């Protein structure tokens, strides 16, 4: 439960309010192993802790990456730590994306906004073990073109024949040559065999609910639709009680949860 101070190796701005921080784990034997979809608690000295997904390549534990959106005092303080400073880290926590169970199946990755951060690790894993999976599609949505994460990497993925990458934004000026519209609308262009498809999804809850509905309409089984949820978290280990979603602790039962477990609760108000 103690944060381990790690040096900020580099800090890169992604969008107006997000940045990616690389932490130095060279002093740790074996680096910082994690599974795609897991998160860490990041601590800003004297300010507080916040749960942040790990965005790096799971096959390269020597590099610990987090993409952080500055939305409050803790994330703002983490940004101010700057290169060479230290932030506290404890983790990794939570259940990962079910990439083993997805072997042999078509995979649809659906990311909205900052939701691409925890899915980046999954995409890198899928690319590294590409032959183990069927068709792999990556759908990415953001509010505006400027709000897209990892734009250079997105371009690289788009050029990669092993992936089908579809990007959409809610609003755009005339200079944007890509798609405009909501994420579920992209599903029509995805090649998959619905009954043999696994969906991995992270983004605003409303976006995920609409996307789930479209996936269900197309025949993807509930048990193969996986959502990464966000809830208030203080401890990350199932003690503090904050992240409960009726029977589930998002920190230890999630953050990745299959839709068949979520369905009884996710459409209820204020649970």
């Amino acid at each position, binding site marked *: 439960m103690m*944060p381990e101070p790690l040096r900020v190796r580099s800090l890169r701005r992604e969008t107006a309010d997000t940045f990616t921080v690389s932490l130095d784990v060279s002093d740790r034997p074996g680096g910082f192993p994690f599974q795609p979809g897991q998160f860490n608690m990041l601590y800003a000295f004297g300010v507080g*802790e916040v749960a942040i997904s790990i965005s790096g390549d799971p096959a390269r534990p020597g590099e610990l990456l987090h993409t952080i959106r500055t939305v409050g005092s803790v994330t703002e303080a983490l940004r101010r730590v700057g290169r*060479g400073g230290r932030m506290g880290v404890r983790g990794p926590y939570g259940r990962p994306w079910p990439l083993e169970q997805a072997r042999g199946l078509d995979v649809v990755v659906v990311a909205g906004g900052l939701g691409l951060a925890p899915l980046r690790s999954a995409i890198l894993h899928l690319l590294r073990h590409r032959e183990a999976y069927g068709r792999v599609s990556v759908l990415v949505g953001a509010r505006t073109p400027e709000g897209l994460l990892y734009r250079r990497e997105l371009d690289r993925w788009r050029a990669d024949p092993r992936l089908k990458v579809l990007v959409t934004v809610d609003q755009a000026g005339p200079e944007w040559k890509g798609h405009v519209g909501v994420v579920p609308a992209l599903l029509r262009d995805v090649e998959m065999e619905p009954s043999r498809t696994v969906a991995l999804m992270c983004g605003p809850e409303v976006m995920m609910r609409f996307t789930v509905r479209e996936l269900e309409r197309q025949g993807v089984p509930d048990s193969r639709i996986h959502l990464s949820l966000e809830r208030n978290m*203080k401890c990350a280990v*199932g003690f503090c009680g904050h992240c*409960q979603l*009726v029977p589930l602790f998002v920190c230890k039962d999630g953050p990745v949860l299959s839709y068949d477990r979520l369905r009884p609760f996710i459409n*209820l108000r*204020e*649970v």
Partner: protein
Amino acid sequence: MPEAVKERFVLSVEGLEALLVALRGDGWRLMGPTVRDGAIDHAEIRGVVDLPRGMTEVQEAGTYRLARREDGALFGYSVGPRSWKHLLFLPKLRLFRAHRQEEGFQVEPESTEPPRLALIGARSCDLHAIAVQDRTFLEGPYKDPDYAARRERLFVVAVNCGQAGGTCFCVSMKTGPRVTSGFDVALTELLEGGHRFLAEPGSERGAALLARVGAVPAGEPDARAADAVVERTARSMGRAMDTTDIKELLYRNLEHPRWDNVAERCLGCTNCTLVCPTCFCSTVEDTTDLLGGVAERWRRWDSCFTLDHSHLHGGSVRHATRSRYRQWLTHKVASWWDQFGTSGCTGCGRCITWCPVGIDITEEVAAIRATDGARPGA
């Protein structure tokens, strides 16, 4: 269920004092019931002298009053406002200190040697509550080190309840009134035919202690008298809760109009969660000294009745009182089963007694059961 008479002893009031003295001599701090601030509370005691002799209480929804009883009973009450929770799961705990250094900071873990506590007069509901909290803090994938350390240093002298409080319903929750596990010595106070205690060891060290203080084997009549005390208590529960399929009942009634009804009464004051012996929510506070050189992280009790509890950047997930009360009650008697394989309610009745507006968990569950499946506006 009556047990064999073997392993049952009789202890006089003097014998009890000897037992307490022996425990103190062995280095245990005695924590027991004592009259304080108009209630029978758990605090440090010296011996029999500090016990609430001749005192009892009257409990009802939203009501707690001390009262006298004529028989000089030492444990003649049911449960006070506090269980033992605050001794194991501290209301406020420093998790670590961090020191700023030239390059970043260093974290200094807490090293505490918790006290060895002897709980005197623990009731069955509260011992069940400790077992329930064990599942949260010790039996999951992670262990809470502070709780674990405190939990290891306990000696338990339990008491079988000689009376049921007005808000008690342990019989419904199958948590009492007879103490069945988690104790070193269990006492039943016998008042007729001479003030004495029937004592049963629950552990080897409990048996050794009884032998040391000269407890004599109990005869059949005393054993039967003790059983009669517990049976009478079991028959006089102030409340009852029908727990048949209770998880499914609540899960299928998450949109029941009763939640709106209770929200009109609930003040969101958090009293129920504070007095509840199983509520485990906590939050953290981070502070720095004035120079910013030393930072501390504290954990303190939290309540699902606060807006901050479900706060996400931008707003609270459970904004309405209705949602927060629903979270508390549903968690307590339904989702707790999914999470920990047990009910989160022990039937101690504290949430009923200490609710300033007298909201009664048994009444709320009964109201939902009576109109199972009702929908808002129906």
